[in-house]
C-alpha cells in the first residue's frame, strides 16, 4: 500500500491464483456453512453456498399441540433467540384469529428491539470486525496516537493511552504464548503479512480494545431481554393471545430495562457507529464488492399484529436495486425450491404445502449441495437482513431511516449505490441498530402511559379451532422470518419454517439462479487462497445463522455416530 498518498482509496490486492478455494467450516457464524469457490486469475468465477446442517424441526412438530410449537422452534438457535418463539406465536395467533392487546404488542416489540441491539453489537465486533481489523498489527500501534484517534471519533469518548497499552500488552502476551484461543487460525496471522488487511495500526488497536469492551456491553443487552422475556437465551413470555410478563409492568422492572437499554444505546452511538464509519472509511473499495439485486423485508415492530403495514419498519420487496419502486409484499409469491438441495424431487412449493423429505447425496455433489432449500419470491432470489429492512424503509421514506442513511452516506462521502455491497450491508446493520435503539424509549413511554392510564391487559383468551392455517412474519436481526402452520383436529398437521439465512444463503433454484450470497461472492478478488478473508468479509456481512443440525462425533474415534429416529 502506498503510504505516502493519504487520500487514495486502497484497492483490494489481487493475486493470479486459479483453482479451488474452500472455506469449511465458516467460523464466527451460527451453524455449519461451507463455501466452495472456484477462482480464476484471482477472482471468484463460480461458488456454492452449502449449509451442512439438517434441522428436521418440521418433522418433530407434526402431530403436536400448536401451543408447543414456539418452545421447539425457539430451540432452532440461541443466537437468534426469541425470534422463532415470536414467529411461531404469531403464526398460531393468526390461525386462531385472536386479537393481541396493545401492551402485549409493545412488550413483544421491546424484546425484539433489545434482540436487535444485542445481535448487531455482537455481530459487528465479535463476528465481523476481525475480517477488517488486524489484531496482530495492533501490536505496532502507538497507544497515545490511538487514544487521540479514538477520542476524535466521538465527543463522549475519553480513552487513554494507558488503556490502549494495557490491551496491547494483553493481546501481545496471548499471541506470544502460542495458545491463541479465539484468534486461532485467524487470517491476519501468518509469517507473511496478509495484504488484504489495510487499516493503520492505531485503528487496529482501537478496534481491538472495543472488541473487548463490547463483550461486556452485550451482556447488558442480553440482560435487558431477560427482564421482559424471563431469561436469555430462550425467552419464555410469549403465548398465543399475548404475553405473560405481568411482573414486567412494575416500575422497577421498567426502570431496570430502561437503564440497560440506555447504556447500550450510548455505546451504539459513541462506539459502534463511529467505529463502523472509521473502519469503512479505510475500506471504501468494498462499496463495489459483494452486492446483490433483490431484497425482501417483512417489516417489524407492529402496532397491529394483523397488519404488516402498521410496522415501524415497513414490509416490502425491491427488485433490480430499484429503490424508487418498492413493491408491496404478497405472501402467496413465496416458493421454496429443492432442485439443488438434499431433498427428494424438484418441486418448488409454497410453505403451506411445504414438504421436508431429506435425501443426502454427498459432499462433492455440485448439483445438489445444501440442506437449505432455495426460497424465491416471484421466482427471484432475494437478500434479506438489515440491508433489506433499511432499503425498503428508505425507499418508503421512513424518516428515521432516511436520516440515518443520509448521515452515513454523507460521512463516507458515497452515494446510495454504495449500499448495494458488502460495505453497504455492514453499514445498514449499524443503521438498523441505531434507528431501533432510538425508538425504544418511545415504545417504553407508550407502555408506561398505558399502564398509568389503567390498562394492564396482556392476554386475550381464545379457543383452539379444529382446522385452521396461519402464518407468523417477523423481521429478525438476520431478516425475513416466517412460520407457517396448518392445524387439523387441533394438532399441527404441517409446519414450515422459512428462515432469513435460507433466503440469503440458500443454493440455486430450479431456474439455476444463484442464491444471494453466491451472487455476492461472484467476482470477489482473492489475495491469498490460504487466507481468503475476502470471502469471509462478504459471507459474514450476511450474519449467517444456519441453525443447529444433528451431527454427532464419537469423542474417542472421531467417527460420525448415526442415529435412528424411532
Amino acid at each position: 500500500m502506498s503510504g505516502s498518498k493519504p487520500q487514495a482509496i486502497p484497492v483490494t490486492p489481487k493475486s493470479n491464483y486459479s483453482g479451488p478455494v474452500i472455506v469449511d467450516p465458516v467460523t464466527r457464524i451460527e451453524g455449519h456453512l461451507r463455501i466452495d469457490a472456484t477462482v480464476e486469475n484471482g477472482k471468484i468465477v463460480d461458488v456454492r453456498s452449502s449449509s451442512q446442517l439438517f434441522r428436521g424441526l418440521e418433522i418433530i412438530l407434526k402431530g403436536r399441540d400448536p401451543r408447543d410449537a414456539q418452545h421447539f422452534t425457539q430451540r432452532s438457535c440461541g443466537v437468534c433467540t426469541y425470534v422463532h418463539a415470536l414467529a411461531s406465536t404469531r403464526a398460531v395467533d393468526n390461525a386462531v384469529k385472536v386479537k393481541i392487546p396493545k401492551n402485549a404488542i409493545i412488550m413483544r416489540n421491546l424484546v425484539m428491539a433489545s434482540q436487535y441491539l444485542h445481535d448487531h453489537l455482537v455481530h459487528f465486533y465479535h463476528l465481523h470486525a476481525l475480517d477488517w481489523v488486524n489484531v496482530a498489527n495492533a501490536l505496532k500501534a502507538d497507544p497515545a496516537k490511538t487514544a487521540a484517534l479514538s477520542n476524535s471519533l466521538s465527543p463522549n469518548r475519553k480513552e487513554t493511552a494507558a488503556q490502549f497499552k494495557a490491551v496491547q500488552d494483553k493481546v501481545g502476551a496471548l499471541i506470544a504464548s502460542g495458545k491463541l484461543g479465539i484468534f486461532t487460525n485467524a487470517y491476519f496471522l501468518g509469517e507473511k503479512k496478509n495484504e488484504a488487511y489495510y487499516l493503520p495500526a492505531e485503528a487496529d488497536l482501537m478496534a481491538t480494545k472495543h472488541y473487548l469492551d463490547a463483550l461486556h456491553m452485550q451482556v447488558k443487552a442480553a440482560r435487558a431481554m431477560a427482564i421482559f422475556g424471563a431469561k436469555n437465551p430462550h425467552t419464555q413470555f410469549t403465548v398465543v393471545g399475548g404475553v405473560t410478563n405481568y411482573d414486567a409492568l412494575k416500575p422497577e422492572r421498567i426502570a431496570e430495562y430502561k437503564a440497560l437499554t440506555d447504556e447500550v444505546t450510548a455505546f451504539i452511538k459513541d462506539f459502534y457507529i463511529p467505529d463502523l464509519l472509521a473502519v469503512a472509511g479505510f475500506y471504501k473499495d468494498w462499496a463495489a464488492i459483494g452486492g446483490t439485486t433483490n431484497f425482501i423485508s417483512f417489516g417489524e415492530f407492529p402496532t397491529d399484529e394483523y397488519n404488516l403495514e402498521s410496522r415501524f419498519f415497513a414490509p416490502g420487496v425491491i427488485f433490480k436495486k430499484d429503490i424508487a419502486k418498492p413493491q408491496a409484499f404478497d405472501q402467496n409469491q413465496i416458493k421454496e425450491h429443492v432442485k439443488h438441495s438434499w431433498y427428494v424431487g424438484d418441486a418448488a412449493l409454497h410453505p403451506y404445502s411445504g414438504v421436508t423429505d431429506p435425501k443426502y447425496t454427498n459432499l462433492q455433489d455440485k448439483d445438489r449441495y445444501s440442506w437449505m432449500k432455495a426460497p424465491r419470491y416471484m421466482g427471484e432470489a432475494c437478500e434479506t437482513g438489515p440491508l433489506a429492512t433499511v432499503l425498503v424503509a428508505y425507499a418508503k421514506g421512513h424518516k428515521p431511516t432516511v436520516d440515518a442513511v443520509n448521515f452515513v452516506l454523507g460521512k463516507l462521502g458515497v452515494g446510495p449505490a454504495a449500499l448495494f455491497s458488502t460495505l453497504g450491508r455492514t453499514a445498514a446493520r449499524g443503521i438498523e441498530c441505531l434507528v431501533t435503539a432510538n425508538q425504544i424509549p418511545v415504545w417504553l413511554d407508550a407502555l408506561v402511559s398505558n399502564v398509568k392510564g389503567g390498562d394492564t391487559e396482556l392476554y386475550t383468551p381464545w379457543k383452539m379451532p379444529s382446522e385452521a392455517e396461519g402464518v407468523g412474519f417477523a423481521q429478525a436481526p438476520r431478516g425475513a422470518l416466517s412460520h407457517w402452520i396448518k392445524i387439523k383436529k387441533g394438532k399441527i398437521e404441517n409446519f414450515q419454517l422459512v428462515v432469513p439465512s435460507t433466503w440469503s444463503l440458500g443454493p440455486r433454484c430450479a431456474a439455476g439462479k444463484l442464491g444471494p450470497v453466491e451472487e455476492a461472492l461472484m467476482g470477489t478478488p482473492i489475495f491469498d487462497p490460504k487466507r481468503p478473508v475476502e470471502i469471509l468479509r462478504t459471507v459474514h456481512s450476511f450474519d449467517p445463522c444456519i441453525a443447529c443440525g444433528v451431527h454427532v462425533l464419537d469423542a474417542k474415534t472421531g467417527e460420525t455416530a448415526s442415529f435412528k429416529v424411532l
Partner: protein
Amino acid sequence: MTDSPKRILVLGVGNILFTDEGIGVRAVTELERLYDVSENVTLMDGGTLGTRLMDPILNCDMLIVIDAVLGDGPAGSIYRLTGEDLRKSLAFKDSMHQTDLVDTLIMCELVGTRPDAVIIGMEPEDYHTMALELSPVSQERQEALMGFVLEEIAKAGGSFTKKAVPGPLTQEREQCA
C-alpha cells in the same frame, strides 16, 4: 495494603445423566450437604455449562474444578492437574460447541482476569451408560476425592467445618451417596 482472603470457587462439573461423568457434580453437592465453608469459599454445581461459567470464574481468585478426567490410571484414580493438563477436564469439552477449560480461562483473561486453577479429577469407571447413579468404584472413592478437594480449599486460604446435622439427601442423592 488490604489482605482480603482469596475468593475460592469450587466448581463441580459434568453430566449427571451418564454415570461417572457426573462425578464432579455429585462431589460438590455432597460437600454442600456435609460441610459449612468460610465466606470466601463458594461451592457450585456447574453442570455442563462449560464456557458459560465464565461469569463465576471471572469473579474468583482460585478455581478448584472437580470433574471426571481420562488419565492413564485405573478407574477411581484421583489426579491433581494444573497448567496444560487443565485441558483434560472432560466436562468443558462435552460438545462440538465447547472449547476446553484452558481456552475458557484464556477468554477470562482477555476480558478480565484469570484465576489460578487446579482440577481434582477422577478416572471414571463408566461414562457411557445412561444412569443417575455413580459406579460402585466411584461411590467408594468419592470420600477420598472430597478429601483432596477440602485439602485444596485449605491450601488456598479457605476453611470448613463438618455440619453437626448434615443436609437432607434428595431422592437422587439417596441413590448416589
